[in-house]
């Protein structure tokens, strides 16, 4: 098992804030919109440096998506910012018609995704957003794993032409990816090569998958760990190559089991190479209030869940 260490921990939303500032410096067409959550989205540095390119929309997310779509006409590259729940479920029809169907170059940037939003509870903890966004034709869906990767992803989507959903979160998590990484949309990242089981993880679950890999290694299980930061378009080649080698799969994500990364992988495998698969995901339920780590444990999204899922997947091989 390849060794991953960290010296610093930060929230992925701060990676977005840092990336937005840098994207703004690189391209004068980058503009930012926010629905009354500037501090939560870490947009302050961008606003301070480019006040004329920032638009405070107020608590009106539908209007924000429409304005962003309109701003692309004439060449602007709008980044909208609010919580993941208000970035998707609240404005699904606006995204569908004015952004996705109209093929507008809007970057929908969504913080506080999933259970790790914590104490605010289920009204704010969206676990269905990946599903909603990936179902939209032409939408790119990205869920990076740490500060550095979120920053790199933010820079990459500014240069990419087309609608993007960028999902990140609130909690402070280890920074274990390179600060100078090149983010390639749609290209999975091989975290650890192994032969016994393929663990495909996204977002906050990537670090947990690495920890699980270390425990599995102590048990004599050689886990291949792949970071699927781009859920759509899915890196089908990377997944099929890995599965051809390992013969069983664990998918890990901070999302409902229905409609998430695991679903995309299962569909791919059903069509190409049916394979036993275990899901580390929320089992079709809403979340609740609590400290993020408590919630991750209660809803089965912790290191132990990944270890057990890997063992189970391996047992099912060849049956």
């Amino acid at each position: 098992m390849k060794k991953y260490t960290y010296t610093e921990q930060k929230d992925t939303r701060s990676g977005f804030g840092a990336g937005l500032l840098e994207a703004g410096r690189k391209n004068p067409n980058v503009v930012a919109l926010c629905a009354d959550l500037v501090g939560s989205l870490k947009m302050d540095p961008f606003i301070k440096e480019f006040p004329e390119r920032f638009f405070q929309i107020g608590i009106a997310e539908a209007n924000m998506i429409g304005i962003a779509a309109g701003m692309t006409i004439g060449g602007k590259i709008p980044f909208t910012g609010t919580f993941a729940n208000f970035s998707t479920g609240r404005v699904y029809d606006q995204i569908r018609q004015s952004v996705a169907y109209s093929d507008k170059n809007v970057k929908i940037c969504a913080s506080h995704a999933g259970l790790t939003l914590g104490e605010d509870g289920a009204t704010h903890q969206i676990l269905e957003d990946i599903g909603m966004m990936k179902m939209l034709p032409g939408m790119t869906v990205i869920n990076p794993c740490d500060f550095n990767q979120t920053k790199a992803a933010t820079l990459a989507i500014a240069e990419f032409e087309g609608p993007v959903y960028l999902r990140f979160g609130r909690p402070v998590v280890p920074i274990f990816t390179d600060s100078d990484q090149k983010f390639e949309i749609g290209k999975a990242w091989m975290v650890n090569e192994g032969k016994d089981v393929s663990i495909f993880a996204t977002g906050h679950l990537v670090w947990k998958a690495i920890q699980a890999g270390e425990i599995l290694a102590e048990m004599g299980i050689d886990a291949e760990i792949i970071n699927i930061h781009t859920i759509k378009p899915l890196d089908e080649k990377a997944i099929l190559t890995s599965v051809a080698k390992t013969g069983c799969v664990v998918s890990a994500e901070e999302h409902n089991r229905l409609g998430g990364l695991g679903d995309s992988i299962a569909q791919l495998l059903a069509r190409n190479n049916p394979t036993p698969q275990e899901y580390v995901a929320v089992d079709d339920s809403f979340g609740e209030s609590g400290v993020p780590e408590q919630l991750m444990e209660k809803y089965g999204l912790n290191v132990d869940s990944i270890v057990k899922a890997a063992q189970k997947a391996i047992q099912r091989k060849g049956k």
Partner: protein
Amino acid sequence: MTSDIENLEQIATQVRRDIVRMVHGCQSGHPGGSLGCTDYLVALYFHIMTHNSDFNMDGTGEDLFFLSNGHISPVWYSVLARSGYFDISELATFRKINSRVQGHPATHEHLPGIRIASGSLGQGLSVAIGSALTKKLNNDNGLVFTLHGDGELQEGQIWEAAMFAPHNKVDNLISTIDFNGQQIDGPTEKVLSLGNLKAKWEAFGWDVLEMNGNDMSNIITTLELAKSKTGKGKPIMILMQTNMGHGVDFMMGSHKWHGVAPNDEQLAAALDQLQSTFKDY
């Protein structure tokens, strides 16, 4: 000016012929609102707006138009085709399979003249505000025009946008409401009362004008007045009184022709009232 008005009226008559023939051709679509808004759209595209039929999505330096009540697509398609955006023969493909002339306006098939999809109501004002903001950032003096149904004002997003535009001094925007008092299920006053629209928009901080949307002279005068009011710190809203179905007597003033196509007999009766002024497609 008189000859200008007469010319515009002749174009409007031909557009009305196109509308009834298009909805008859596919036996679906929305003739009522299309006929009611014909004079306004003809005035915009043939007299008021600076625009280029050699279509470019960004529309730099041009005036832009957004149709928020996308179901009245027949009138827009006809006006676009007749101002040179695409061949009028393509109008015959309206709502048919493998066509660029979709039931509701879309960019997906790359029909020239369309900059955003509409159909699901209430979204066009936000989009227009966005494009108006971009024009300001780009130091582009072009104006942005929008059209909305009155029933569409029942959508909440309209009022989000209504609040935003004056707060942010979006004064390169001229919006119009097709105030025909009708929606699918009946008169707006019965379905969900709109109340005093002039007072409402003024209270939100808009400069509000009123016009008769079926009187070409009045439309031209009012739109010119609206243009003269741009750049003064306020967005402009025109409450446009129209007759649903205007130009075809049996379609006029009733919500029943909101989304119903004429049969062969009704088409003939309608075309009798709309003598061809230019070539039919």
